[in-house]
């Protein structure tokens, strides 16, 4: 969007010079005002979880011996793929452990927050028509973009600073904590910059945030591959990923600040590209143009409509879940070799099979992705209702239970199918890498046994939608809780994970199969969905 400045002199009432940045200050204040609670919640949640995790690691691995055995465990390729480049494994301290195993999982949510903030400030106001109103005021063309990016940066910095303050209460070296928090901030800024470019390319806000999320996924996979191929950031793959740059700082061990310069340069370049692109597009349109649709429709009903609306989301999430399954399967031989080389494992874990334990954890990770998808699907139902499209359909001879049921049913089926396919792919790739076809069935089973847990989370989402739709954000809090508990429940205080279905489900293939929790979780899920549907039938539709 370019403005053509007219040569007429500014009216006498205009105070001060005007530029492309005029109005940035008020717009930034507005954006921060809209975001203030979001920023507070993110900052406190991230800082709290980080501090609690550090303390738990400290409690669990309090002695050098325990830390050394932990280092052995975490240097397995499968663990490396989910952790980091493995600095300081020879002398594994609490700091080295935190930088290696925890830092990535602080970076990811903050990066997600940054991506969502950028599209929310850069594209959503265009779609709503708010930006038209803003731009009609004496506001420079670049001001909304600058204000939006600054608001996202302020949010990221607030999270980083709060986390740093929280870490001061732990035994960790403050200098290392400062570097780790700076690394978190920088990787989030890089992805915010990438998201700013995506916001110029995409045709609409939702596509822009999807592109930003895909960038996070690609960056994660690049560093996973890189860290497995070359420890301590020696692989080229690691250096292709912003996570790789931020993890190469090696807080608490090497304490290098220079890799952050790469991230800052990348951020600057992508923001500059975003500004250049912003000048080339029209308000409300992306640079990638949309094709016209068909003049007549073939959609027949609610299910068809839901599939049409959700298919991109379903297929992208399925691709992510299946890709993760394949990655784990391909690493199966590396995991097994690693275990065979480490006789201390038997002493450490008794009769347990560490390979099976690793697969059990990865299967739950697939489940976490699947219920995150399922929650977005129920969130989309809520968005349909609030937008008025729900009312348009429910003013037709369409039963409420059918409208909601079809969407929930599709989400449940899609989540189950993506898990089964991912389990099968994980089994097949593991069988291929190990030359052992007996691996296939247990791994399909391991993925399948997470389905009741996924359905429980889906049930909670439907229940909240039916009873208190205004509080739908609670569902996301529950999703974050279950995700953290499923992945890190072992290191967190006892009983903290009591509200997560995955606490009760058997951790296949490490544990023996146990039907009662599977049946119980399925029943809980069915009851929650039924209650949610019944409540939805009885309540007023939201306007």
């Amino acid at each position, binding site marked *: 969007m370019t403005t053509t400045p007219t040569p007429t002199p500014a009216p006498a009432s205009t105070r001060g010079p005007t530029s492309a940045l005029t109005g940035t200050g008020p717009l930034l204040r507005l954006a921060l005002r809209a975001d203030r609670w979001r920023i507070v919640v993110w900052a406190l949640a991230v800082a709290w979880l980080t501090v609690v995790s550090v303390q738990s690691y400290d409690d669990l691995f309090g002695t050098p011996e325990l830390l050394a055995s932990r280092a052995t465990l975490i240097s397995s390729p499968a663990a490396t793929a989910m952790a980091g480049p493995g600095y300081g494994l020879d002398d594994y301290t609490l700091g080295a452990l935190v930088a290696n195993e925890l830092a990535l999982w602080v970076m990811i949510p903050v990066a997600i927050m940054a991506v969502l903030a950028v599209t929310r400030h850069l594209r959503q106001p265009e779609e709503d028509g708010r930006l038209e109103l803003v731009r009609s005021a004496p506001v420079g063309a670049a001001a909304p973009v600058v204000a939006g990016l600054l608001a996202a940066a302020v949010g990221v910095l607030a999270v980083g600073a709060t986390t740093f303050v929280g870490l001061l209460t732990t035994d960790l070296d403050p200098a290392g904590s400062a570097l780790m928090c700076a690394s978190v901030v920088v990787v989030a800024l890089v992805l915010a910059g990438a998201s700013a470019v995506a916001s110029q390319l995409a045709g609409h806000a939702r596509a822009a945030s999807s592109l930003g999320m895909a960038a996070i996924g690609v960056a994660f996979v690049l560093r996973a591959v890189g860290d497995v191929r070359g420890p301590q950031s020696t692989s080229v793959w690691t250096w292709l990923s912003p996570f790789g740059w931020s993890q190469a700082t090696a807080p608490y061990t090497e304490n290098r600040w220079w890799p952050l310069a790469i991230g800052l340069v990348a951020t600057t370049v992508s923001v500059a590209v975003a500004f250049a692109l912003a000048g080339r597009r029209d308000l409300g349109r992306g640079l990638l143009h949309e094709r016209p649709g068909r003049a007549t429709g073939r959609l027949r009903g609610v299910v068809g409509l839901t599939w049409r609306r959700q298919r991109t989301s379903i297929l992208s999430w399925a691709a992510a879940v299946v890709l993760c399954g394949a990655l784990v399967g391909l690493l199966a031989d590396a995991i097994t070799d690693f275990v065979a080389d480490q006789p201390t494992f038997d002493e450490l874990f008794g009769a347990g099979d560490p390979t099976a334990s690793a697969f059990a954890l990865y299967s739950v990770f697939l489940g976490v992705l699947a219920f995150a998808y399922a929650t977005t699907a129920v969130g989309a139902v809520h968005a349909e209702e609030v937008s008025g499209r729900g009312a348009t359909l429910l003013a037709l*001879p369409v039963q409420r239970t059918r409208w909601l049921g079809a969407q929930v049913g599709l989400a449940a089926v899609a989540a189950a199918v993506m898990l089964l396919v991912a389990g099968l792919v994980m089994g097949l790739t593991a069988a291929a890498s190990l030359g052992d076809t007996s691996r296939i069935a247990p791994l399909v089973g391991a993925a399948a046994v997470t389905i009741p847990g996924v359905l429980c989370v889906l049930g909670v989402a439907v229940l909240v939608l039916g009873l208190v739709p205004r509080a739908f954000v609670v569902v996301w809090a529950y999703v974050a809780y279950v995700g953290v508990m499923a992945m890190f429940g072992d290191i967190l205080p006892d009983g903290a994970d009591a509200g997560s279905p995955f606490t009760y489900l058997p951790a296949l293939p490490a544990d023996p199969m146990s039907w009662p929790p599977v049946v119980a979780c399925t029943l809980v899920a069915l009851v929650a969905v039924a209650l949610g549907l019944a409540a939805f039938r009885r309540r007023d539709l939201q306007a």
Partner: protein
Amino acid sequence: MAPEQRFDDAIIASELVKTFGPKRALDGFDLRVATGEVHGFLGPNGAGKSTTIRVLLGLIRADEGEVSLLGGDPWRDAVALHRRLAYVPGDVTLWPTLSGGESIDLLGRLRGGLDPRRRADLVERFELDTTVKGRAYSKGNRQKVALVAALAADVELLLMDEPTSGLDPLMEALFQEVVREAAGDGRTVLLSSHILAEVEALAQRVTIIRAGRTVQTGTLAELRSLTRTTVQVGLRDADGARAALAERVHDLRSDDGHLTFDVEATALDEVLAALPAHGVTSLVAHPPTLEDLFLRQYSDELDALQVPER
């Protein structure tokens, strides 16, 4: 249309109350719409028009009061009743990735099919490009999509909530034409609006809502008896004119050779005929606005003129 319905009221609502937190959106509201009529539903923004229509659609449930729609309960029998009605919201949101044509056909199929000839005819007359994606339509074009979908359906009742918002004057005229055709086919129309002229052009009977209450209901003729034109006239002989008009007009005020008064539509001819004798120097007349009408509803001196409620 079932013959036994023809002589019944299509909509009967009595004593409706609906609260949203502390706000009483409907506060003892009454509405009767006879089968086959175009019923105007007038009120300022926030008066409770949309809330009423959402109650009639069974999207929300009234806290108190009785509602009957096409002989059924709009909350309990929602699905069965929706086969027989179509709804046009005032602010249409479409599926951003579906083209207008896809949205029209989806809505038609969910209702049990629409008349393809009527669809084609309406698309042509409204000059709607059906290949445009939902997110790319302007407000007026989104409105057209909803209008085509509703008017192409074979239904007994049309519930329209400020359906012409965003339409240009040409399309507004076309809208009036197609609603007249629908009424000619024997359909009942509840047309909510805050534009008096639109309702005057289409409706046989009118209900006026304000602050969740029915303030007026009656035929258009009855309503017109309440509508007055405000006239400001400059006169060389203002005092003489004042004496001559005093019995025929309302709110007569004089100010430095100018007279300002309100005059009933029925007395307009007589009053204007009387003016030239007193030397007219300027004349401004403006028609009654809906707001004037509401103001009148609350003006004690005019209570006597109120049309008895049905």
